[in-house]
């Protein structure tokens, strides 16, 4: 199943990039909060919201990395 192998590997590659982007999102979210705090414009609810989003991004990135690992194993076995 060489076709299946390449397709599965392609999915894994896309999700790997998504996991990286989600990790970067946590930095972007913290930067947003910091910028608004510095400008004195941060609403009182923002900190909790940003923290919740950051935690979710970290978890989502971990989920995706796990999926990538399994997909790569799946692709390898499918190619044999």
């Amino acid at each position: 199943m060489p076709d299946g192998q390449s397709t599965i590997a392609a999915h894994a590659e896309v999700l790997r990039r998504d996991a990286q982007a989600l990790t970067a999102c946590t930095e972007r979210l913290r930067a947003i909060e910091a910028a608004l705090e510095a400008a004195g414009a941060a609403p009182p609810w923002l900190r909790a919201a940003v923290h919740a989003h950051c935690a979710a991004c970290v978890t989502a990135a971990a989920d995706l990395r796990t999926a990538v690992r399994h997909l790569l194993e799946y692709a390898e076995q499918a190619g044999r």
Partner: protein
Amino acid sequence: MSSGADPADAVADEDDDPADATVSTGAVPPDAAVNGGDVPTGGPTGAAANDGEDPAGSLRAAARELVDIAILIQDAAAHTTAALTDTALLRALPHASATGRPAYRALLRAATNRHGLGYALTGTHTPTGPTPATLTTAATTPVALTGSTSSAVFGVLATLAGKVGAMLGGESLAVRVLATSLRLRVAAVAVDHPELSEDPLVVRLIEAAAADRDLEAVRALRALLKDRGAVRALSLLAPVFGEVLALRALLDENPLNDATAWLIATGRGFATADPFTGMSNRAVALLDLGEGGARRVEPTPAESARLSTRGSLLGVLGNIGTIGTTGRALIQSVEGPDGVIRHILQAPGMRVGHPDGRSPQDLLGAFSSAVLDSSPYSRALAQAVADYGLPPDAELALVGHSAGGAAIMNLAQDPGFCARHRVTHAIAVGAPVDFKRPADPRTWVASVTNQHDLIPTLDGQGAGSCFDLHPGWYVVDYTDSTHLFPLCHGIEHYLANLADDLPEARAHIDERLKPFHGPVVRSQAYLLFDRPPDPEEFPFLTVPTRPVETAGATADLPIRCRDGSALTAYFAARPGVAARLLKGSGLAPLLVAGRALVGVHAAWNRRSSAGGHRELQIGIVVSGPGRRSAWSGRRGLFRRAELRRSGDFLLGSAVDTPMARELGPRLWGGETYLTALDVRVGVRRGAGPGVRSALVVADGIFTMEGRLGPGLPMSDPGSVGYAGDAGALLRSSVRARGSARLHPAPPMRLSVEPRSPHPLARRLRELGVDGARPLLCLSAATRQSIRDAAVPVPPA
């Protein structure tokens, strides 16, 4: 503008004017923007104008950044779903089940982990328009790598699963981030509108919407409406209307409105559906059908007197106010300072009332103009422009208010229209035009909106928008102290704001309109239609005519009335007097319970071939020439005029124009008096629906006034009259087209003018009708009619 340049090119050349660079981002009069508060201000709509410079700008920039992050997260969700639903993976499973099953488990967990991506199953195929999933980059989407039909089917199933998940309350991380973006937009608006954060009821509503507490949101809205009233509540919410709706739509359990919420929140397109129900806006707009039509009409003398005689922003907006929401538009030609004749199309907003299937300026027309790229309203405007006859390459400025603003922007974005005409300016006032784009890049676009006006936010973008949707436009988005919708939507209110409160914005727009500053040399109003109307007199009034000479002028017979109303009232009268008055005519009175009947017929022929005039005839009801039974005579009273034998033997008549008086003897015989008449038939203002009333005043003769009461609908049968003429009997008739109502025993009364010596007043007293109530009335509020000359009745 470079010296020596063709003045006609001035507008296009000025696009490079550095002065415009500031305003093109959406910033409005800088001084006003600094003032804030209740002083008319230019609240920034384009984030680029203020990013990082003030709290509102920082909040908008942050909201925009969060939109990017939400889209990125949604991409990841779509990619995960795509992997899950790819049949290529499924086909490999039998060959590698040991590693395939854990891979599927991991993908499923990634797509449904509420601590991670949330409930993130999402497909790539939706029939209702763009969804978050379609925001993904196709080149990087594995679905594109495989692209099989089976994968597409699985994609649809994933979409379905996503919607079911939404119905069950499953939220994705992308939605939560987008909701935070919307809340930051609300916070940004609150900087310029402190009432949003200070009013506890508004705060309660926004918080409930943002927290997905449905019941609490409904209670908060109810409390707001109860405490402030609908007008004030809507006005308070107007600046953040789009954001609150999008928040609700994102977080509620209705999956049908999610696409609209995403469009509003990401600023990527027009709100394609009602954010509450998810009903497609385009489906509603498609009810508005028609290729558009326009017919030349003359404004009333009072309107003509108020139309501006010079081209200017305030003059044009004043014109729009003058012609009003009456289904009309105006085109004017002005001679510019350089002697060049230029043209201005002026389009008012929606006319009040139910959709009528006739005018494109109705509610449906407003909706379709805003939602669609072309609508009956814009097509009707194009027809008006075509009829007006612009020279090739003539410069045309388009100015519209409300629905008219959306309609003129539809014209501006029509490549065909812009190929035929050189659209130099498009100015929309109080209109939802954020997602319109002019076809000709040289067209200078200005949008003027009051932040408390709900109408411009109907496309989903209002004061809270964090996107610079049209960097080349001049945007004036301001607030004033009125805060009341719909008052702040009126053209008069915008006119007053631009005249008194926004001098810099007005001056800037007027500066751009400079080539149009000059005397008006031609002015033409148009009545607009969904479809080109039939010729006005076709088919009923399309009859052969012949000229007849009168002392004053030539008239055509028969007299054709395009629009009129009529009332006939039947009274019980003294039979002896009636018989005496009929003596020698060969006719006998039609008796009812031993009483004769007197018919009082009054009509107002508003638009007739003999000019607008009113007429009055008084006669004794007769069964007609020949021996007829009383029963057949009574039954025949309401047959169509051309087939009717019974009618009114004329005792006298009156009209209110000299021409009608001169024609009277030809039309119905006998002497006709000239006197002031007032005839009104219709729904009385303030009365209930369908409650008709009538007023007939014949100066110095009588007054008949009162409610007509309930009526039986019927076709207007017209009327028949007889008159004696030198021993002969003349028969006249009015053929009518329209609906009428038959009112039994209406609660109205006829009062003869006390001590009036007028012959008709004496006749009515003689017959015992003074102070009487009619037995029966026949009313027609709107009708067409044909009245030809009376003809002698052939001897038996």
